[in-house]
């Protein structure tokens, strides 16, 4: 088989699991192995626990501030009791949020949880990179009633990058409290794979799959009972390859925030 792609070798240098076909090739190819090794020197230098995102806070002893004040000449002083408490102000590093309770998911939905975070510090930096989320909500009037119940939340879905996909989502609540998400998606037909609809938390870490949708059609999906939409307000549409892997592919084409 041909050599692994340069991108795949970079992921190998990061020690990410590779598709089986790449694994098999790499095991027997000295050239690809050498490339991974040469990229790995940088990874090994920097991806060490001592340099990882901050873990538990430790209040520094008072002498540390004294030395800083002496060196900088700054006369404003931090309140010692606040420093000693060392409770990081939100949103620096709140304690890890426990995973949401798992309601019985309606088939064929699956529940996927990404690896638990170590810290939100860099997450805040990453938030600056989020494209498209959080705009356009509220384009749909709430309170409309139709056969499936009352519209309790809605989101306009905006395209991510240049996907060209867009749509509109509403959550309808029936008289018995059960909820559905009605999604009207405009997106190109896929040759391979399918679109999948997710409810994601704002940190983009935990998510529920609601089901599969076609581009260019309206679909009604059940919202798992017990899912708090204020905790999982992001409606996301991903492109999923036909690989049998239930986890979010990471490729999203449209996204919006329920309001």
């Amino acid at each position: 088989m041909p050599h692994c792609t340069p991108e795949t070798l970079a992921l190998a240098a990061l020690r990410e699991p590779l598709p089986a076909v790449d694994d098999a090739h790499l095991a027997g190819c000295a050239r690809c192995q050498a490339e991974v090794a040469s990229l790995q020197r940088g990874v090994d230098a920097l991806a060490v626990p001592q340099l990882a995102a901050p873990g538990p806070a430790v209040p520094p002893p008072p002498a540390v501030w004294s030395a800083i004040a002496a060196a900088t000449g700054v006369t404003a002083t931090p309140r010692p009791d606040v420093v000693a408490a060392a409770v990081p102000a939100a949103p620096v590093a709140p304690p890890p949020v426990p995973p949401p309770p798992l309601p019985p998911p309606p088939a064929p939905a699956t529940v996927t949880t990404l690896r638990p975070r170590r810290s939100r510090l860099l997450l805040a930096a990453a938030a600056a990179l989020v494209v498209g989320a959080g705009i356009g909500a509220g384009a749909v009037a709430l309170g409309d009633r139709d056969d499936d119940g009352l519209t309790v939340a809605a989101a306009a879905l905006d395209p991510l990058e240049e996907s060209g996909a867009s749509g509109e989502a509403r959550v309808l609540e029936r008289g018995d409290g059960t909820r559905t998400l009605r999604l009207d998606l405009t997106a190109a037909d896929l040759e391979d794979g399918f679109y999948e609809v997710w409810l994601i938390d704002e940190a983009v870490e935990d998510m529920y799959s609601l089901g599969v949708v076609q581009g260019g059609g309206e679909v009604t999906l059940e919202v798992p009972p017990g899912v708090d939409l204020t905790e999982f307000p992001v409606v996301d549409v991903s492109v999923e390859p036909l690989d049998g892997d239930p986890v979010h592919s990471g490729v999203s084409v449209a996204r919006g925030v329920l309001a």
Partner: protein
Amino acid sequence: MSSHAGPTGHRPEPDDAEVGRRFAAGEEQALAWAYERFAGQVHGMAVRAFGPGPDAEDVTQQTFISAWTGRAGYRPEQGPLPAWLVGVCRHKIADTWARRDRQRRTAEAAVAQAQSAPATAGPLVDSAVADRVLLLGELDLLGQPQRGIIELAFFEDLTHAQIAARTGLPLGTVKSHIRRTLERLRTRLEVDDAALHA
């Protein structure tokens, strides 16, 4: 308590973003607020690297001193202040490792000389220690989104798929940025090796 009292009885305090802007503008109170809010995180990192004691305290102290004197280098629009402080702290940790390494080699050389043994038995420099200082400097030169992406991979241990989901960037974009950044770090090391052996 006055009518505008917050939980501590003081005037309402600015949020982190406002503290960041005032820090960049050189307002002294912002350094005190930043210390109140983030010194625990920074010191936690220093203690994780060196254990409690003078080395960790020195790292925390140097982090805030460098951050304050180098505040012109902080761009609030590029990211939050605590993330930038953590970046400065990484440099201080790497610098401390390098300093310890130099001290160790100096001491070993002195012992070797006293014993009339060749002083160059081992490698001249612990290469990982030197690499870290060099590569952290190279990371500082990266623009966004490359820098955020590689930091999530290196320091948050996220996979490329998780980074894509987190940032909303397409998977292919994340992969090609990772590839280019690792190549860039490799080139930086090669240039440095060539200079050492020139």
